[in-house]
């Protein structure tokens, strides 16, 4: 677990009262008492210690904090869009107590210096900030980044996200090198020779709208290639934001063969289709692009049957001026942190236990932020566990834009939507960072 800045004074104990605890061990009615950064008691009726802050959790689910494997915090370089601090605030509002920051910053997170900077800022904010390092220098897909040096700083995931590593030779070398470091490579699967200048999914909508398309084959070709390379090298590989039925099938088959592969899906890939682009609103431009209903159904199915291990937001803020450009000139990406849990609870037809598995303990394990790797994320809520909690009212309806997001950007594709399930409180390292859906700092 990341070391935190020493506190001037330790926060008061917290009692989360009246909720239903839900974790890997199942579901039970219990109050949770937190003190000194740890869970001290989980009991049907807990006594509140003196000077304890009591958080009402009536009607709520009390789960380990959520873990997001995929966020773009834009720092350094694009602070007008987001910072580590504003991103972490959005994460807390979304119930996340840990995020993995992608390395496509400016400069990219391909050196000890930049990684250290982000980690240091991350120690002062409202959730744990882990860093994914770049696989290659400058994310150019040519020379390997100093992966061992970054791994010594605690980097567990490496990716050139934003683009995939195009050269099979470079990717094979990176996978081989990774096996010696016991780290995981995460791939943005897109063969650029197939997706070229595409700005949306290639299909009936792109044809009609006259927008160059990214075929499903661009994603699937790289998934297939990397599965071959993972088998060949024995390295662990994680597939970022899988979006096509074909890609999901490839991963399902590889898992049945026992390959060490994991995968994530983004909420926009199980809630929106390429038809959303019909008005050319750049807020619907994202990469991988919104796909067809068939793909949406395949992603949902894969989240249900375990083919996809985690829901990751791919939170990608862009300043308003960037989204006032023509569709094909605007940068891809959508906000995701504050809407992910409600979408997962509301749109997947999965029991809450499974939703929290997808959003808390499974991603915690993939990012190695779990107790087994010395971290405090995603574990069962028992005395001695780290005090990271997400308290959500699963029945509470809310309007996405009833207030501005914590992000410096506004590019949510869910504007005007009514969602059900609102994060009520978030506790990170014993500190209530969100209380009654309000960020505390």
């Amino acid at each position, binding site marked *: 677990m990341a070391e935190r800045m020493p506190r001037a004074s330790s926060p008061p104990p917290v009692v989360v009262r009246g909720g239903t605890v839900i974790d890997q061990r199942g579901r039970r009615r219990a109050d949770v008492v937190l003190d000194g950064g740890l869970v001290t008691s989980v009991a049907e009726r807990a006594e509140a210690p003196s000077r304890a802050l009591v958080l009402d959790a009536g009607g709520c689910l009390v789960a380990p904090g959520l873990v997001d494997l995929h966020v773009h915090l834009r720092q350094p370089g694009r602070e007008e869009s987001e910072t580590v601090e504003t991103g972490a605030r959005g994460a807390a509002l979304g119930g996340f107590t840990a995020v993995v920051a992608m390395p496509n910053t400016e400069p990219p997170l391909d050196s000890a210096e930049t990684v250290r900077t982000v980690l240091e800022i991350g120690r002062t904010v409202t959730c744990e900030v882990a860093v994914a390092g770049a696989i290659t220098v400058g994310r150019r897909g040519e020379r390997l980044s100093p992966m061992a040096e970054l791994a010594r700083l605690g980097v567990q995931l490496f990716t050139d996200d934003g683009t995939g590593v195009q050269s099979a030779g470079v990717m094979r070398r990176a996978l081989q090198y990774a096996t010696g470091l016991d780290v995981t490579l995460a791939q943005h699967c897109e063969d650029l020779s197939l997706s070229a200048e595409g700005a949306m999914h290639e*299909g009936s909508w*792109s044809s009609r709208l*006259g*927008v160059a398309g990214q075929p499903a084959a661009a994603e699937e070709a790289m998934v297939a290639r990397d599965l071959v390379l993972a088998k060949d090298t024995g390295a662990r590989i994680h597939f970022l934001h899988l979006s096509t039925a074909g890609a999901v099938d490839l991963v399902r088959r590889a898992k049945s063969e026992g390959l060490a592969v994991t995968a994530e899906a983004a909420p926009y890939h199980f809630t929106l289709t390429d038809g959303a682009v019909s008005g050319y609103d750049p807020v619907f431009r994202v990469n991988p692009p919104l796909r067809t209903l068939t793909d949406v159904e395949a992603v949902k199915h894969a989240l249900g049957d375990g083919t996809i291990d985690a829901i990751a937001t791919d939170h990608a803020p862009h300043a308003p001026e960037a989204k006032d450009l023509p*569709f094909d000139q605007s940068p891809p990406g959508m906000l995701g942190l504050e809407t992910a849990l409600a979408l997962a609870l509301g749109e997947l037809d999965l029991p809450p236990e499974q939703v929290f598995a997808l959003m808390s303990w499974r991603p915690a394990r993939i990012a190695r932020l779990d107790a087994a790797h010395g971290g405090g994320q995603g574990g069962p809520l028992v005395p001695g566990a780290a005090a990271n909690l997400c308290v959500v009212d699963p029945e509470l309806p809310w309007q996405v834009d009833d207030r501005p997001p914590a992000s410096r950007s506004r590019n949510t594709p869910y504007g005007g939507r009514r969602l059900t399930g609102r994060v009520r409180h978030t506790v990170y390292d014993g500190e209530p960072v969100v209380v009654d859906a309000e960020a505390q700092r």
Partner: protein
Amino acid sequence: MRPFPVHLLSMEDLDAGQIAEVLRVSDSFAEVGRRASPKVPTLRGRTVATLFFEDSTRTRMSFETAAKRMSADVLSFAHGSSSIKKGESLRDTVETVEAMGIDAMIVRHASSGVPDRVARWVDHSVVVNAGDGAHQHPTQALLDCYTVREALGGGEDGLARFGGLRVAIVGDVRHSRVARSQIVAYAALGAEVTLVAPATLLPPSLEGWPVVAVEHDIDAVLPKADVVSLLRVQAERGSGVLLPSLREYTSGYGLTARCATMLQPGAVILHPGPLVRGVEIASEVAELPQSLITDQVANGVAVRMAVLFLLLGRDAHHGRLEEVPDRG
């Protein structure tokens, strides 16, 4: 009949009745064009701006001529010298132009969908799509329909001739906004559209497109076609890499002198321009009497006058309906 739409962004905005209305009104304005002094006061006091973010000579001149013949004031936005180059956003440009008191914006852009976005941003202006990326170019399709109707002698309300009319659209459909508009327009009028192109120059999906057939052999199509509509190979949009060579394209899909002999009597040839002679059409074929390329250009002005009239001139507030010129 449905009222004419507020903006003309896509041929899908118009049904058959509205297309017929455009063609009828175009007849009146074509008559104006034949007068010694081809000018009417229909849009006096109105201001039309051409916002061309992509280079074009013929379409801009056609729209500006149309607006001027209707006595509108015409403002021209030239992207080469504009604030866009100084980093101003598209939206700011549009809002600035509208704040000058513009009634209509004629928008061309290399990116698909820009006119749709502009139409959302404007407060009171009407927006006409003058070609957006590979999406739509509705006035081109309308002037093609007008030209075909004129050539086939359909008469004033002569849309009956379009029923079962066999139209072959030949060439780079994938990148063509003209084709996307033509297909919708011809199909709405009852014509049977066949696309003729190498597979790499077809859109990735034709799901839901009102075409009756796709052919890869121009020789098989020409003897049956009533209208042959050629498209330019858009090398600048990437057609180059989708073909082994222009020479190979011409040998399979160019309208050569040999091919032209296969046309049935009365069949007509259209091309939206600019022509790339020797690639999609042989020079001598472009000069044949059944080639309507010059008529298309001439009709373009009348059809664009009709579109501006239908979008602006009937505005109740201005009460200009009585000023529709009578047919001579």
